């Protein structure tokens, strides 16, 4: 296990290093320059600005400096927001994204699990077809389509909830969270359904029935707990989906989060912010997938043994 974790950590660092390097050199080939918006400057002034941001030095030197700062956790200085460090920008944008992500995750998985359980326990009934259809909708309909629909009907037609922005407390987080929750909801509903159906056919469920346990007890105490374990494996894709979703959903609802900032920094060629956010997202996803793999091994002893031998 320790060997496995060690190997995985080394891979994580290699991956991050590659992403950082690739991002850095891709940024250099971008058309346009981060200081093109300072067009009023004459050549001397431009040189001063370039010197200030360190982009007058040769590329390999810039790369070395960037990597050295990165190792210390410093993501550099934003070009668009003058004088602000990317770290500060990310930190100030973290909260809304974080809240939305957590809410979507919690709501999505809980409702998804319930739907999946109902579908499995009432297999081939109206309930089953209904929740399966709902899950297919959730997997198929892109989050931005769902978000625009929510915004149009609930927000601007029925005036039930704020249309956007982040200034109405918890209320303004409901619609974007719902839009983000569709993915996790559908994934977990589908997953729990298949798992539950499989578990319900196993010997220990027959034993529980034979010894006279009630249907409720069987469903929750025996079947559900065993069906839940593999659900952890979908958490990785779910997290990736949340990041993808946050880019558009935050844009649609005008929420000052990391996703919204990423998209707008692309539009203004803010190299440092693009790179910083890219690395942040990558690190987040890589760590989530790592934790999921480890958790899975810790919870399911069969995998732990196999992992230890590998």
């Amino acid at each position, binding site marked *: 296990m320790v060997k496995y974790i060690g190997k995985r950590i080394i*891979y*994580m660092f*290699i*991956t991050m290093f*590659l*992403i950082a390097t*690739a*991002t850095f050199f*891709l940024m250099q*080939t*971008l058309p346009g320059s981060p200081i093109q918006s300072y067009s009023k400057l004459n050549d001397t002034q431009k040189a001063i600005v370039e010197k200030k941001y360190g982009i007058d030095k040769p590329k390999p030197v810039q790369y070395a400096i960037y990597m050295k700062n990165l190792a210390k956790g410093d993501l550099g200085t934003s070009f668009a927001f003058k004088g602000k460090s990317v770290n500060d920008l990310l930190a100030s944008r973290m909260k809304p994204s974080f809240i939305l992500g957590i809410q979507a995750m919690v709501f999505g998985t809980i409702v998804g699990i319930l739907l999946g359980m109902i579908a499995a326990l009432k297999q081939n009934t109206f309930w089953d077809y209904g929740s399966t259809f709902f899950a*297919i*909708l959730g*997997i*198929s*309909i*892109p989050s*931005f*389509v769902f978000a*625009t*629909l929510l*915004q*149009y009907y609930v927000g*601007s037609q029925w005036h039930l909830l704020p249309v956007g922005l982040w200034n109405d407390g918890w209320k303004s987080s409901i619609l974007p969270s719902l839009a983000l929750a569709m993915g996790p909801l559908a994934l977990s509903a*589908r*997953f729990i359904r*298949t798992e539950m159906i*499989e578990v319900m056919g196993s010997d220990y469920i027959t034993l529980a029935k034979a010894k006279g346990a009630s249907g409720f007890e069987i469903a929750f105490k025996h079947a559900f707990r065993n069906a839940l374990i593999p659900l952890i494996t979908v958490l990785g894709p779910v997290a*990736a989906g949340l*990041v*993808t979703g946050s*880019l*558009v959903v935050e*844009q*649609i609802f005008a929420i000052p989060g990391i996703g919204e900032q990423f*998209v707008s920094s*692309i*539009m203004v060629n803010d190299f440092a912010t*693009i790179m910083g956010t*890219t690395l942040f*997202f*990558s690190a987040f*996803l*890589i760590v989530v*997938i790592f934790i999921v793999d480890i958790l899975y091994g810790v919870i399911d002893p069969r995998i732990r043994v196999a992992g230890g031998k590998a």
Partner: protein
Amino acid sequence: MKKDIEQLPQEQFERVHIDSSKAERIEKPSLSFWQDAWLRLRKNKAAIISMVVLVLVVLMALIGPHLNGHDGTTQNLRHANLPPKMPGIEKMGIMDGYGNLSGEKVDLYAMKKVDEYYWFGTDGLGRDLFTRLWEGTQISLLIAFVAAMIDLVIGVIYGGISGYFGGRTDDIMQRVVEILIGIPTLIVVILMLMIMEPGLMAIIIAISITGWIGMSRIVRAQILKFKNQEFVLAARTLGSNDSKIISKHLLPNVLGIIVINTMFTIPNAIFFEAFLSFIGLGLQPPSASLGTLINDGFKVMEFQPYVLLFPALVISILMIAFNLIGDGLRDALDPKMKD
């Protein structure tokens, strides 16, 4: 009891002889793998309906732009912002050319003195949205199919080589994959799009640059499963070379899973294209795809919801259809494999 049986007339009974030569006779015609799969798929109503819907959408994408005599790029400012109006349906009170004008319902066609019908309305530049919708669908489908084909070719070749030759080759190839798989798709796609000239090719390349990894892993796992089985050994003993074993013996066995996986790659590509166009990194105007149309619609959603409605509907229908067909194919081709 015993007596009752003895009282039964003997002549009503006849001895049955089992003809041992007929014991091995096969009653039903033997079905090939694909016929068998088709029988199972046919029972899946959702998949069949999805196939019909999909065929209809593809047909519309091909002929739709030529149906009503407008073309998708001609701008006609006099005809801008018209609501949908369709002959026939207009009498039912929907799609009748009435739209909101400062809070009142007005026949905008009469007001602007437009005699033509714009079935799905027009956008802010007076372009026909019906034509643009199907042109956009065409582009989205094209991107999705090409990206899926590239994924398929690279994935199958990479996974096939890695699985079949094994050893050092496999080791190196899998280390590369392990690193690539750690990089989030979204990040790669966005970075690639930023450095390339925006357009059709850029999107296709960006989507397929990491898209093949999933396919290669599946193909590799399958090849590993099959390559040590007796029929491969037999083929080798009979003198088949590597390329023949791969193409004639291994690939047909893996084909089912390749088809299933492709069915899930296509909607994924449609989603990514729409997603990229929506955040402004995809196709550039005046070309239309479902993503750019949804983006246009989103901007005027408050006043002209129909601009958003139709492309959103088409993309949702496409995604649902592909997912349901994929599910159906998975159940039909590999009944043992669940989620």
